C-alpha cells in the first residue's frame, strides 16, 4: 500500500479545517501568514483531487451580486492521512531507547 504524501502546506490546511469549515481567504487569515493567498486555492484544488478535502459553494441570498464563495472541509480520508502523519512525526521525534547487549 502506498502511503499518501502530505506536504507541510497541506498539513497546515487540514489542521485548520479540522476545527471548522472555512473559505479560502479565511484559511489565509487564520494561518497568520503561513499560507499565501495566491497559492492556497491551487493547493486546495490539488487536495480535492487527492480526496483530502471537499468543497461546495455557499447558498447566496436572493439579490446577491458576485460569485458564490466556496467552503472547504476535510474528508474522513484527509483526517486519517493527517492523523497518520502526526503519528509518524511524533514517532520520529521520540528519542530511541537503545538496548544494550
Amino acid at each position, binding site marked *: 500500500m502506498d502511503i499518501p504524501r502530505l506536504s507541510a502546506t497541506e498539513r497546515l490546511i487540514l489542521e485548520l479545517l479540522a476545527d471548522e469549515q472555512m473559505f479560502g481567504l479565511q484559511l489565509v487569515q487564520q494561518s497568520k501568514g503561513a499560507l499565501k493567498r495566491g497559492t492556497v486555492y491551487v493547493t486546495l484544488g490539488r487536495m480535492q483531487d487527492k480526496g483530502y478535502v471537499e468543497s461546495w459553494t455557499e447558498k447566496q441570498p436572493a439579490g446577491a451580486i458576485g*460569485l458564490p*464563495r*466556496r467552503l472547504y472541509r476535510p474528508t474522513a480520508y484527509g483526517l486519517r492521512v493527517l492523523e497518520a502523519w502526526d503519528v509518524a512525526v511524533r514517532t520520529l521525534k521520540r528519542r530511541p531507547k537503545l538496548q544494550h547487549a
Partner: protein
Amino acid sequence: MIPGRALQRLAARICRAKTLERVVEPAIADLQKEYADAEHQSRSRRVLILLTGYLAVLEVIAMTALEKPPVANEERSALIRTFAWAAGATACAFGLLIVLTVAALPGIPPFYVVLMTPMMLPIAMPVGLTLGIGFGLSGRTISPRTRNTILLSAVLATVVSYGTMTWGIAVPSQTFRQSMSNALGAHGTVTKGLHEMSASGAHRARNLAPGGDPMGMPRRLAWTYHLQSAMAFATPLLALLALAAIHHGARRSIVMAACACYFLLVIGGEALVYRGLPPIAGAWLPNVIFAAAAAYLMSSHPPSMQNSLSPVR
C-alpha cells in the same frame, strides 16, 4: 463596482472548466466578498484590497495555466525525446558528411571544416529530424498536438534551410574552394562553380549561358537553381511521411529507408535531367513523390488520424 469580472473572463479563456470552477472562481469570489465588506472603510484600504486580491487571482491563473494534465506530460516527454534524437542524428549527419568530405581531400586544415557547415545544413537537417521522428516516436501513438509541433519545427527548418541555400552557402563554399586552391599552390581567383552560386546567381548565369546540348551548362545551372528551392522543403515532406508511416505502424528501419530513398531520388532526378527531363521537374521529383506518398498514407488512415487522434496513453 464588482471586482474580478475581467479576470474571470480572462481565466475562462485560459483555464480548463474544472480548474476555473474549483480554483480560480473561489479566489475571485473571496476578493469580491472582501471588497464588499470594506465598503465603509477608507479608500486606501479598498485600493489595497483590490491590489492584493488582483495579484492573488493573477497568480492563481498563472499557476493553473502552467499546469499540464498528465497526458500532456507524456506528450511533452515524447516531443523532448524526438527532438533529442533529431539533434543527435543531425549532429551525426553533419559529422558523417564532413568526414566523407575530409576523406576525399586528404591534408585539409581543420579550419576548413567550419566553412563546410552551411553546405551540410540543408542535408543534415531533414535527415536529423526524420531519424529523430523514427527513433523518438516509433511504436507510439502520435497525438495531433505532437504532430503539429513536429511539423511546425519542420517548417522552421525549411525557412533556415532556404535562407542558407539562398544566401548562406555561396560565400563559405567559394572561400573553401579558394583556400584549397591556394593551399595546393595555385594562384588567382577560382571561378565560381555551380554550388558556389546563390540561387539568384545561378538564375543569372543560366540566363547568360549559351544554349546547347542537354548536358550543357544552362541545364545544370537550371537544375541547381531549382534544387536549392526543392531541397528546402525536404524537411517537412520527410517529417510528414515519417509521421504517417509511424502511425501506420512502420518501424524505424522503414523511416530510415525512406530518408535514404529521398536522396537517391535527388540523384536520380539529376540523372533524368541530363537525359532530357526539364530541370524543374527533375529537381522537384523527390518532393512530388514523397508528398503523394504521405498524402496516400494519411488518407488511408482511420479518421482519427486526420481529425483528432486519441491522446498518447
